[in-house]
Every structure is written in C-alpha cells, then in structure tokens.
C-alpha cells in the first residue's frame, strides 16, 4: 500500500465525509430542537435534488435561480412537514416517529421519480471534471468543491447557533417548558429547525446530485448521515464536523485497505460498524450530552 494512495484516499474521505455531514447536520438540528429522529432526511435531500432539476429543466430557470427556488420550496416543505405531521406526534413513542419518517421517505421516493421520471437526472453546477494534481496526489475537483461548500455550511450553522436566534433554539432544546415560560415561541423555533434542516438537505442533494446525478439513490445517504450524527452525538452540532471527517476517512480507508484483504465492498458496512461501536462504547457520541434518568 503506497503512501500517496493513502493520502489520496484520506483527502477524498475528508471531503466526501463533509458532504455526508451536511445531511447529518439536518438530523442533529431536528433532534436538538424537538428531540425527534428524522429518518426521512436522506429522502429530503433527494427531494431537494429533484426540485432543483425540475426548476432548472421544466421551468427553464438558470441554475442559480433554480437552486434558490429549490431551497425556498424545501424550506417551506420542511416547515409544512413539521406543522402537519410531526407536531401531532409529540408524546408518542419513539417508534411512531421513526415509522412516520420512514413512511415519509417511502412517499417521497414515490413522488420524485414518479413525477420526473426514474432515470438518473443530470444536475450540472458547472464544476469542471478535470482533476487537480498536486505533486503526485490527485484531488477530485467535484469533491473538493462539494466538501468545501459543506464545511462552510456546517460552520455557518454552528455560528448561527451562537447567535441570538441560536440561543433561543438552544434554550428550546434544553427545556421546552422553561423556554415557553420565558416567552420563546417554541413551536416557531422547531419549525425553523425543520425549515433549515430541509434546506440543508437540499443543499446536500444538489451537491451530491452534481456528483452522481439525481435519482432515488440519493435517499441512501441517510445511513452515512446517521453514522455521523450518532458518532458526533445526536445533540451536538459541532460534533457533526469532526464525526463527518472521521466517518468519511474511515470509509475511504476501509475501501483502500480492507477491501483487497476480504475481497468485498466493506464500505457498505463501515457506517453500520461505526454506529454499533459508538452505541456500545459511548452511546451519546463524542460530544453528546448524557441524559441521567431520575427516579
């Protein structure tokens, strides 16, 4: 195993991981504010990708306008989902919410391909295909740009959480009743979190769509995003950043090092193994807060 290959794999792992992280970010945002797990986050990314393609090709908008339109649409969509569905699930067992979001995923997986056709749709952001070569190391341009944008968005979200509105959202995540009593509009904060999560999913959908084309398989990014959010801690936004890099690099190196040994695509289960290990060793993730149960 040569060193340069390792470097290349590590770099692409970091970049791809950050792109996964964008989806994980939405999961963490929603969990942090409302305590619900959104397993439809991958499907939201897919829907965002489809929306962008639809605005660009069917409505004939230029790409930048299509992106803005899709972001806006999905923001509203996210808030609508919260308003119509999730708000009614408060107080229901966890499994109900899990099933609801899985139902949503099934539904969205029908809508996108059903309306726009099931063949892979191109989504061209105008990123050139030619590789960047530094020394002997090749860097994949598409992932470099995608990873950079993802990192920026993640950092921007962390910054947002330190701003005034962020403080309110954090308060909501700490204690809904207490936030209510000091005049924070809890419902609005949760709705904003959903809107933001859907918009972030759309951003991820667009980036991934430009890398792989838009089709139903975008919804499969969920598993990686789950691994990241669990590793980082479901209620830690900053955790996403580090966990994304860890998961990305682990997957990349597993492909490079383990695959030749076992003769199979181990990448498939890296995310699963990370989830399992995290839950067994440190259930609340690297940066998550442990909840102590009171009797």
């Amino acid at each position: 195993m040569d060193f340069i290959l390792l470097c290349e794999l590590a770099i692409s792992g970091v970049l791809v991981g950050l792109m996964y992280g964008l989806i994980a970010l939405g999961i963490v945002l929603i969990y942090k504010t409302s305590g619900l797990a959104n397993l439809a986050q991958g499907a939201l990314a897919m829907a965002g990708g489809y929306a962008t393609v639809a605005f660009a090709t069917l409505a004939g908008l230029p790409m930048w306008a299509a992106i803005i339109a899709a972001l806006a649409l999905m923001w509203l969509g996210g808030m609508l989902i919260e308003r119509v569905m999730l708000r009614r699930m408060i107080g229901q067992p966890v499994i109900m919410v899990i099933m609801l979001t899985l139902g949503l995923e099934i539904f969205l997986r029908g809508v996108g391909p059903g309306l726009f056709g099931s063949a892979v749709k191109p989504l061209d952001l105008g990123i050139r295909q030619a590789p960047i070569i530094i020394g002997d190391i090749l860097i994949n341009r598409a992932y470099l740009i995608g990873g950079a944008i993802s990192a920026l968005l993640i950092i921007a979200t962390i910054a947002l959480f330190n701003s005034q509105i962020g403080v309110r959202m954090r308060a909501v995540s700490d204690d809904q009743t207490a936030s209510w009593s000091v005049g924070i509009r809890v419902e609005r904060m949760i709705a904003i979190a959903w809107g933001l999560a859907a918009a972030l999913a759309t951003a991820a959908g667009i980036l991934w769509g430009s890398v792989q084309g838009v089709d139903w398989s975008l919804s499969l990014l969920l598993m990686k995003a789950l691994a990241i959010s669990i590793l980082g801690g479901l209620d830690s936004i900053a955790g996403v950043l580090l966990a994304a890099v860890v998961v990305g690099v682990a997957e990349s190196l597993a492909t490079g090092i383990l695959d030749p040994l076992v003769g199979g695509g181990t990448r498939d289960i890296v995310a699963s193994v990370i989830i399992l290990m995290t839950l067994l060793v440190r259930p609340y993730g690297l940066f998550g807060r442990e909840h102590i149960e009171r009797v």
Partner: protein
Amino acid sequence: MQIDRRTLLAGGSALVLGQLPLPAFAQEKLIKFGAPQDFTKVYTFVTAEYSQGQRDYITLFNERGGINGFKVHLDVIDHGNDLPRAIEAFERYKREGYVLVDPLSTPMARGLVTRALEDKINMVTTLSGRSDAADGTVFPYVMPLSPNYWSQAALIIDFFLKQDKNLKGKKIVLVHIDTPFGREPIPIFQALSQRLGYEFQTFPYAPPGNDQSAIWPQVRRARPDWVIFWGAGVGQTVALSEAIRNGLPLDRLSSSVWLSESDMAVVGKDATKGVLKFEAAAGGREPKVIQDILKEVVAKGKGAGPEGKVGTSYYNIGVMMGAIQIEGLRKAFEKAPNGPYTGPWLNEGLRSIANFTAEGLLPPITTTKEDHQGGGRGRIVRWDGAKFVPQSDWGAAYQDVVWGEIRKYSEEFKKSGK
C-alpha cells in the same frame, strides 16, 4: 378515530376497485404474456425504456393482425423488486393461463426459478437472472434468449485482445458492484487471464454504487491497461464520472451491456467520448423494425411512451426481447397451430428459433433444447458523443470457456440446487 360512513365508504370502494377483471378485449383470441417488472426500485434505470420497446413491438405485431387470429396481451405491472409481489403476479399469471413471464430483475428471476420449472411457464431472463440458465437441459423453462454475462465478459476481453494483439503482461481491472450480479463475470475473467496471460484485479463497490469516491483513486494507482466497469443505473454514471475525474483514459474503458445514452447525457455527452460497451441489439433508429414501429405505432399515437426514447439502447433491447418472444410464438404456431396454447407449447417454439435477426436489429439468434442463450453473440460499440458506433462485427468469443462455466453451475444446480 371515530367510525363513520366516510371511512366505511372509502374502505368499501377501495376493496371493489382492486378486483376489477382484466380489460375486456373485443372477443379476440389472446396469447398472454406477463411482464411484472421493477419500475420503482433497483431497475428503474432500464425498465421504463425496456418496457416501452417491448410494448411497442407487441403493439406493432398486434396492429399487423397478430398470428393465426391470435393477438398477444402483455400485462405490465410493477413488482418493485419485492419477491412476494413477484410471486403474487406469477401465481396470478399461472391461474389466468399466461404462457410467458418476463420479470427483468436478477433477484426476481432467481426467486422464481423453481416455480417456473415446476409450473412450466416460460420465464424470460433478458440480460439478467442466472447465467447458467443458458443450459436448456437443466433449465427447460428459463429463457435468457440473450448473451449472458459470461458471454459479454468473453467478448469484451476478445475485443481488448484484438486491439492490443497480445494481452500478455497487460493489466485489466474490473470495477464492479458488490452483488452477485457484479461478481458473476469474475470466473470468466480469471479463466481467460490464465489463457491469455494478463493480470487481473477487481475493485468492488457497495451497491447501488452512488458513492465510489474511494475506488477510483485506487484504480488510477493500479495503472491498468484496460478498465471494465460492471454495474447498473446510478453505479454506471458514477463510475464514468469518477473515471473522468480521476483522469483515466476513456477509450480504454468498457462497460457491460448496461450503459445507455441517458447515462452518457447525465455525465456529459462530450465528456464521455470514447467509452466502450457491449451491445446485444443495434442501437439507434436505423434498423428496419424501429422504422416500422415509428411509422405504424408511434405515428398513429399508439406508442407506449415518449417518442424521444425510441431508438435508445434500452428501448431497442426491449424491442429485441419483444421480437424474440414473438418469434418463439411464431415457431410454436408452426409446430402446433392448434395448441393447446400452454407454457410447454410456447416452450417448443422458444427453443427452436433459428437464425433470427429481427430484420437486422440483432445478431443471428439460434436457440436449441440445449442452448437457451441463442449463441451468445454481440459486439463492442464506442460512444462518439452522440451515439454508440460499432467497433466490431457481431460475434461470440470463447464460448468453450463460457459453456464450461455454464455447465459447471447448471450441474451444481441440478445436483444440489445452488
């Protein structure tokens, strides 16, 4: 929830709707073909176009009056790559006297093998299913009717050999989806590497292949002389994009049969110039049968889908399968015009197709009681930015190796049911 009239009404009407009888064709005699296919899950990349071609050809056939007063009814339904649904469709077809089933999905074809054999219903496994089903003595009712993956692999290697004159010391790598389908061609590549002296290496990626970021840097560092990428749908477009992004020479890159014009459009029509693939049926609108369909079906507004798709690779594969199925039907009528019109009856026909080319769409297909593959012929084509251009004549390669594998696995199936 409160029970009220609305709930009851909704439930009741839903119950009634699902059980409507088959569409009543005007007192025509029908031969029934079933096409439970995957429109919603894994095979979405091909099914819509394939089905369009298949239906258009059958419409053409029916428009021209059918055969012996019979027309063909093709029932198209989604099985979503879910076995209970495929089984339900199969059993329904069995009951309603269908003589042929075309599931177009490797897992479904595998799952239905025992039923097809027991119930004597012809199961067409176009470019899918078990490769060893080519052995008609073991799988009398399973009909690949198209070059299996082993034949495709052999032809691809044969093409490389013709280009380089000698493969000794060359390196060929296979980037494949990590499923039984992706792993299937490996024995052929290995067998041929012993015979031809090339070095062979594999790179599996996780299904469905939407993320291959860590594979291609390794492929690049392996410095291969030829790269074969073996997947389907999104795995193919991603493989292509990644090959480009990693700066691999595209004219030394070949795919199996599952690469289409729309894949090229996704990655970029010009960016993908030079890519090779295996072809089982001629693409484009030039073949006479496609022209006929355009004139007699599409122009009359009876086309099964958007006109723009007519003549694409997968559409033509659909036409090819429609044509071969109908040819089998013709042969069955030749042999026994008065029926009984059952699975075994059609089986006789499907197994005696001789030199059928569908008026130039296909390489000559000849099936026998032993050979359900039809000869394993195909050719290699190259993408020129607008269409796939043939690089070789129709032909088959290393059928001795291919049949060696076929016999090995069909024997195993016969002996131990693997």
